[in-house]
Structure formats: C-alpha cells, structure tokens
C-alpha cells in the first residue's frame, strides 16, 4: 500500500505524462533536425494545432461523458461551408456584408455555432430521446452532414472572405495568429468548466458510473443532450476558424481530421471507456501530433509517412493507457 501523498504524485505524473513526452520529442527534434529549433517553427506548431485542437475539445467532452461523436469532422465542414457561402465574395460565396463592417465577425461566428449546435441537437435527439446507439447515430451524421456540405455548395468552393474576418487569421500576438489564441482560449474555458463547475463534474461522473449518477438524482438525459449540442457548437467554431484560415471553404474541407482528433484525444490520456481525461492532456496530444507533422515536413519526408506515424502513435497511446491502468491497479 502506497502512502497517499506518493499515490497522488504518481497520479499527477501519469495524468501529465503526455506533456513530458511532448517536451522530450521537442528536445530530440530540436537537436537532431536542422532548423527545427526556432520561434517560427514553434509558432507554426501552435497554429497548426488550432483546428484539430478545437474540434478535439468537444470530442473530449463527449468521450469523457461516456459517449462518442463521429460527426464532428463533417459538422466542422458544414459550419465552414455555411460561413464561406454566406460571407465569401468569390466562387459559390454570396458575399453578405454589413455596416459597420466588423459586424460580420459576431454574425458569422453565431451562424457557425448555430449550425454546429443544430447537428449536435439532432444527434442528441436520436441518442437520448430515441435511445439509439451513439456510434451509429453519429456515424450516420458523419455521412449525411458531409453530403449536405456537397449539396448546399453544389460541389463548388467559396473563396475570399472579407478582410474584416481574415485579419483574425493573419494578425499575430507573440508570433501566433489570433485564431490560434481563440482555440487556446477555448481549451482554457472548457477545462475550467470540466474541472471547476458542477456541469463538468457531473458529465465526468456520468462517464464513470451512469447508475450511480442516476441514483444521485443527476439528470443524465439533460446533461448528455447539452454535451452533444456543445460538441456540435465547438465543431462549428473549429469550422469557422478553418474557414477564416483558408479564406473560404471547399466541399472536402477537413477530411481526415476526425482521426487526428481521435488520436490527439487518446494520446492526451482520455479513456474511450469514459470518465477519465483532461483537456490539458488533449491539447498536449494535439501539439505532439503537429510537432511530428512539422518534423516530417522539415526532413522532406513524403506526407504519407505522417499517417503511418499517427497510426503508430495511437497504438502507443493505447499501450500507455493500458500500462497506466496497470500501474494504478497495483498501487492499491
């Protein structure tokens, strides 16, 4: 039997293992890869992490609450496409503008969030009200929402968002563009909700033991519904950020991001069983993936190596998860 303080220390180390790994990886890359160690590279890693990272916030909340949402990638694309169609000036864009010009920021953001929330609410309806399996429901959404993206755009792309929106993706603070700061702000806000508010505590407990939370009078259905809507809206935010970054949207925008987000979530220490994980870990997971992508680019390796390495990383992360569970079990 360990002394409790030792136990807490080991718990802390295991929970933050991914930050340690990130640090080691960055040091190794900085030493072995020429030109890796410079502020521009690190800023680029943070910028690259914006979209998968933001999407991973919502995905993490859902998984910690003991559910699953495969639809976030398509939701991201839908929100980006709606933003592009309404406010871009070329291609399929309709170029709606406002006076004063800056009004386009809150309006386009609200539209993107609403689009995401609507998809989330649809998922919640089938999962909570009709008691359908979340995996199947959100897999269906993954497909039909992507179909909707193609349908509303007619397969065309929308280009050239107004400068009043674009500046968020161009202007930097401490070498990092504003959209990346928005994503980091999202991580901090939702980490606070998860750790410090009753809502966060409750969804974590639902993910841990549904029966116990039900018996304690916690409204599981209501909270699950909110979590799905939140995950959708956050995916909408990610889509809005990506539309700003690419100055518009194409019908296949964001393809493959779902698995990167899953990889980040798992690497970040979120258990797919539910109830376990932190958003700080998930952000480290996203940064780790981006660091490796950047290393591959710098070394001039073909891009498909990225996929092989990402796949390997997910396996390593699962292995670590199993190992951690094993260590924790032996601590009793």
């Amino acid at each position: 039997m360990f002394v409790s303080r030792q136990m807490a220390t080991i718990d802390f180390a295991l929970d933050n293992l991914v930050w340690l790994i990130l640090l080691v990886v960055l040091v190794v890359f900085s030493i072995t890869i020429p030109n890796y160690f410079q502020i521009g590279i690190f800023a680029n890693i943070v910028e690259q992490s914006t979209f998968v990272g933001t999407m991973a916030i919502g995905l993490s909340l859902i998984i910690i609450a003991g559910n699953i949402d495969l639809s976030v990638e398509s939701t991201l694309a839908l929100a980006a496409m709606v933003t592009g169609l309404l406010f871009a000036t070329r291609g399929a864009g309709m170029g709606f503008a406002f006076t004063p010009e800056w009004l386009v920021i809150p309006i386009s953001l609200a539209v993107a969030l609403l689009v995401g929330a609507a998809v989330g609410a649809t998922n919640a309806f089938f999962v909570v009200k009709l008691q359908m399996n979340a995996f199947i429901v959100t897999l269906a959404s993954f497909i039909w929402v992507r179909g909707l993206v193609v349908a509303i755009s007619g397969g065309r792309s929308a280009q050239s968002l107004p400068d009043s929106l674009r500046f968020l993706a161009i202007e930097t603070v401490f070498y990092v563009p504003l959209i990346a700061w928005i994503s980091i702000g999202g991580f901090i806000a939702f980490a606070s909700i998860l750790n410090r508010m009753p809502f966060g505590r409750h969804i974590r407990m639902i993910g841990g033991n549904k029966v116990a939370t039900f018996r304690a009078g916690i409204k599981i259905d209501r909270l699950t519904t909110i979590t799905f809507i939140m995950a959708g809206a956050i995916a909408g935010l990610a889509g809005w950020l990506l539309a700003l970054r690419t100055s518009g949207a194409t019908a296949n925008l964001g393809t493959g991001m779902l698995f990167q987000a899953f990889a980040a979530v798992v690497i970040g220490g979120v258990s797919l069983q539910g109830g376990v994980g932190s958003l700080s870990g998930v952000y480290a997971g996203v940064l780790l993936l981006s660091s490796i992508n950047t290393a591959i680019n710098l070394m001039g390796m073909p891009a498909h190596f990225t996929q092989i390495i990402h796949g390997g990383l997910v396996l390593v992360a699962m292995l670590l998860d199993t190992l951690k569970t094993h260590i924790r079990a032996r601590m009793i």
Partner: protein
Amino acid sequence: MFQPATELMMTTQPLLLLENIRKSFGAIEALRDVSFSVGRGEVVALLGDNGAGKSTLVKMISGGLEPSGGRILFDGEERTFRSPLEAKNAGIETVYQDLSLCTNVDVVANFFMGREITKKVFGIPVLDEKTMAERTAKAISDAGTRIPSLKVNVEHLSGGQRQAIELNRFVYFGGKLVLLDEPFAALGVEQTRRGLEMIRRVSDQGIGVIIITHIMQQAFMVADRIVVLRQGTVAGDVATSKTNLDDVIQMITGENIANLSAYQRKEGLPRTV
C-alpha cells in the same frame, strides 16, 4: 408542558410500518399480508431463502415497485414511492456495493455527488472544493472511519472504505432509513467486522437499518430483530436475543430442524430443494 407526551409518541411510533402489504405479478402472488416495522435506531435483519420475496419487499420500500395492496407508513405518514429518487428525498436509501459511487473521481466528489456546494465567481457557479473537503473530512472522522486521503480517486480504496463513504454520505444528508443488500458479500473478515461496527454507530444516531443477508451469523451479530420471509409471508418476527440459529433456520425453510443433515445444521445452511 406537553413535551413529554410528544416525546413519548415520537418514540413509540415506528419509523417504518408495513401493514398487510400485498404484491402480485399477474397470477403470481409475490407477497401476501406482510406486516412489520422498523423503529428509529433499530437494526432489522431481513432473512429468507431465494424467492421468498425479499427483493420485492426491498424494492417496495426503496421506491422501485408499488404495492398491490396494504399501506406503507414512513415517519407516521402513508407513503408510496414511485421512484428511488422519491424515496431518497424522504430519507430512505439502498446502499449497494459499487452502484452508488463513481470510482473515477475522488472521495469528496462522491460525497457531494449531485448535491455539490458552489460559490459564485463573477456570477458563475464554481465548485467550492474547500468547503466540500472540510465537511467530508468532518463527517468521515465523526463516524470514526479512516480514509488515507480524500483527494484520492475511489478506485484506489477498498470495498470497506467505499461502503463507509456511502453510509457516511447517507447519514450526513439526513437519511432516516437505510437498506443494506448483502453489504458484506465481497468483504474480508476484518472489513466485515468494521462494517458491522459502523452499522451499530449509524443506528446509534437514531437511523433505522434493514440489512438483507444470507449469512446468519452476521444477522445475529448486528441485528436487534430478525424478520423472516417465506413464500411471500412473514414466517417469523423475533428479537435477536430471544431466538437462536436453529429456530431461525426452521423459520426460513419451514422444516423441522431434525430433518436437516448434521452438516447443514452446523453451517447454518438452509436445505436446498
């Protein structure tokens, strides 16, 4: 001036009174004319063979089933509990092992599950961890339970410690009647001893306890009264001090003790048919 009379009434009126409870599922009568009571601070052991109707009765008291006939009086009022939550709000709770705790969060989070204390920070409700930790620590030490750290996840704690958390939580939030369904099924000897001690301490605070068990020795160690169910009726309702193992086994099986084998007698096992 009227105080003594009121007090007398309070003490004579049982906490829980079941009157001629009936429950039928279609043509099957699971319970017939079941009547018994549990007083404040009284520990009642509910015994009976499999299928005697214990589970049905327990569900009726804790709000999973409604009786087909008869009355349930709790705290002097006629009540029917439509859901476990209703029963819980009235002060009745069933403690099942591992069904009422989230092992993925710490002791404090479990203690205040669904009843978190919050403070407003810029108008936003934020968990008041400090207050919750202090109250949990006090409640647990008042009950004489020792848990290494309240900040540790419940998955690291033993079965006995988990049970202690559940019972202390129940007491802290004003519970009046607790039902324990096979509470020591998965516990070791020392943990069981501490668990029995804890039940005594809980009942000393005026809380009624119904303990359902198959292990006769435990019933004799902790219960003030033993109620035996057989084929849906009360086959015996006796003070523990006025009965013995053989009599209780006879009530459970309905057979004369002489018909049981020497082995069954020694082990206190009912005869399996």
